[in-house]
């Protein structure tokens, strides 16, 4: 088991490395680059543009930029700061440890391998801070939706499988087809129209907190407010959470309930289910003890593969409902051409995807005793 886990983790390292290259390549291929936004600014002189490029290291050759971003090259060398490391490619840090270890050990200053994602060009904050601020709202939205969506998908799938070809089953099938065909944002728009439009107007159309009564979510003021009026703050949050959660749940439930249904039908057709019934066990015990437990095995793998897409897939939902999470940060950074933030989010979400695949494999190997290592 341990060997298997180690092997799977080792296999994902080259994948992550490949991802850094693709992420870097896409942004490099973009015409203009981060300085494109100055192109039509008459107040920027050429010298100022050059200074901007130099200060962000954009004047260096591409391999050097990549190397610095990864944290293997030391920018101090090129800037001729006294006491810097003699070689521009510093595989070994100043303290004699390999340069890709954390700062405390290797002594190097920054770079991806040290867990430093660089600085946001548009705001000047560190990318890590910006992502961390945006991660909590995304986590709240994603986890609440995930719990509801999985519970409902399993319930609908199992019930549809038990009562196969019943009216409920057929309704679930139609719902799944339409849910698959429905773009997330369209559902979001329609929900906004019904619940926040001129007719009902009972739910907020966007945001995370009521701006007139509460400070912005995540700010120090907010936590003070939250401590003072916990109930009001939670109710406010729940109201804002309702529409985005419905959007995510409805769209995601469609495929998953089908998956659970198919898996459950397969389990119900197995010999051990017939044996259990022949023994005279009550139907309920056969369905839930024998069939369901086995039917959920493939579902576990599916969940592991889907969790990352809940985080990345929230990009549209967040953008419609102005939910201040990673998706919205990603969109604003795209319009602002804030490359370091974009690369940071791409990398972190790729990491989540790889970790999700890994966990799915390991969890599957763990719950299914038939898998040998």
């Amino acid at each position, binding site marked *: 088991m341990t060997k298997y886990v180690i092997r799977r983790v080792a296999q994902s390292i080259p994948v992550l490395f490949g991802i850094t290259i*693709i992420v870097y390549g896409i942004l490099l291929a973009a015409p203009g680059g981060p300085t494109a936004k100055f192109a039509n600014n008459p107040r920027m002189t050429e010298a100022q543009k050059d200074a901007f490029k130099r200060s962000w290291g954009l004047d260096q050759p591409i391999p050097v930029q990549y190397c610095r971003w990864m944290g293997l090259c030391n920018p101090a060398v090129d800037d001729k700061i006294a006491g810097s490391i003699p070689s521009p490619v510093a595989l070994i840090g100043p303290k004699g440890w390999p340069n890709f270890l954390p700062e405390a050990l290797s002594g190097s200053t920054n770079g991806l391998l040290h867990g430093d994602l660089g600085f946001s060009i548009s705001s000047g904050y560190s990318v890590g801070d910006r992502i961390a601020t945006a991660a909590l709202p995304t986590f709240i939205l994603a986890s609440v939706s995930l719990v509801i969506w999985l519970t409902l998908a399993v319930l609908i799938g199992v019930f549809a499988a038990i009562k196969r070809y019943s009216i409920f089953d057929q309704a679930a099938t139609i719902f799944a087809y339409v849910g698959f*065909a429905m773009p997330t944002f369209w559902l979001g728009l329609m929900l906004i129209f019904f619940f926040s439009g001129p007719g009902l107007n009972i739910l907020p159309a966007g945001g995370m907190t009521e701006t007139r009564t509460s400070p912005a979510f995540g700010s120090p003021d907010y936590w003070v407010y939250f401590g003072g009026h916990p109930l009001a703050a939670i109710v406010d949050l729940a109201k804002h959470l309702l529409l985005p959660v419905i959007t995510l749940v409805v769209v995601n439930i469609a495929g998953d309930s089908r998956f659970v249904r198919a898996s459950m039908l397969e389990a119900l057709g197995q010999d051990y289910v017939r044996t259990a019934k022949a023994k005279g066990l009550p139907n309920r015990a056969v369905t839930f003890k024998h069939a369901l437990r086995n039917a959920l095995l493939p579902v576990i793998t599916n969940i592991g593969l889907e969790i990352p897409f809940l985080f990345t897939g929230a990009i549209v939902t967040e953008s419609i409902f102005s939910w201040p999470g990673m998706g919205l940060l990603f969109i604003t950074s795209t319009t602002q051409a804030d490359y370091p933030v974009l690369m940071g989010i791409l990398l972190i979400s790729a990491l989540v995807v790889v970790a999700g695949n890994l966990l799915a494999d390991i969890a599957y190997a763990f719950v299914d005793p038939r898998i040998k290592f």
Partner: protein
Amino acid sequence: MNVEQRIEMEVDASEVERRQEEAGSDYEVTLESLSQWQLAWKKFKKHHLALLGLGILGLLFLVAVFGPILAPFDFNTIPKLEPGAKPVAAGRPPSLLHLFGETGGLQRDVLQLVVNGARTSLFIGFSSMFIGVLIGTIVGSVAGYLGGFVDNFLMRIVDVMLSLPILFVIVVAAKFLGQGSVLLVVVIFGVFSWMGVSRLVRSLFLSIREREFVEAAKAVGVRDRRIIFRHILPNAFSPIVVAASLIVAGNIITEAFVSFLGVGVNPTTPTWGNILANARTALLQGNWWWPAFSGGAIIVTVLAVSFVGDGLRDAFDPRSQT
């Protein structure tokens, strides 16, 4: 001879016996033999939803081809109101004059927009699918046929591509490389939708290349390229077609989604996605018909494509009965 034909022949044989018994032994029955395509069509016709989907798709294609000719869209033309009508900021609801209502702001005809959007959206969905299937088939057949190092290398690339948060990557690529052009968006979508097909084709090749007819072709000295294209690929055709239908559905939704985020096709060329993106502006003033009809077009198309996909899967599946 493939599995379907063999099954059909067995059916035919029993059918012949049955009819001979009915008509007496001296009566001769000739049964036409069906090609794989005729057989598939026979099964496909039994799938009512698939037929419906095919009909809707055909209709949509007609709309996409002739609609923009009948109701051409020009971004720079501001529509004129009929005499006596007052401008309404949110646009007017559906009426006999404007079946799908009007947009907010300039009060364009939503039906005209949706019809023009059909051409772009369907074009993007189908042509990006062709690119994706082409790349996927080439990569998959090379990896599956050659095996060894090439296979390993190509499949690791697929692993990396599949680990990318693909929607994020498409948004970034569309924004910085697409520049609002329809053709570039098609290429970007194609480049990011081949991975599934390549895995599928590879696995098909791995099993088909061990079959006797491939061995026979090799034994008589047929070149690799001919074996791949003439002997193996036709046998792998049906699963690829089914996968392709899923890609079309996925890419139409993705286009809508990317345009909705404002990084897809320029609003000068209407697509269902950027029509919907603009529809946000008048939503809270009560204009529901603008998003409802443009989004409805997407839903109907994707439903039709997935019905056809389901029908194709059943039609090509040798285990399903005629």
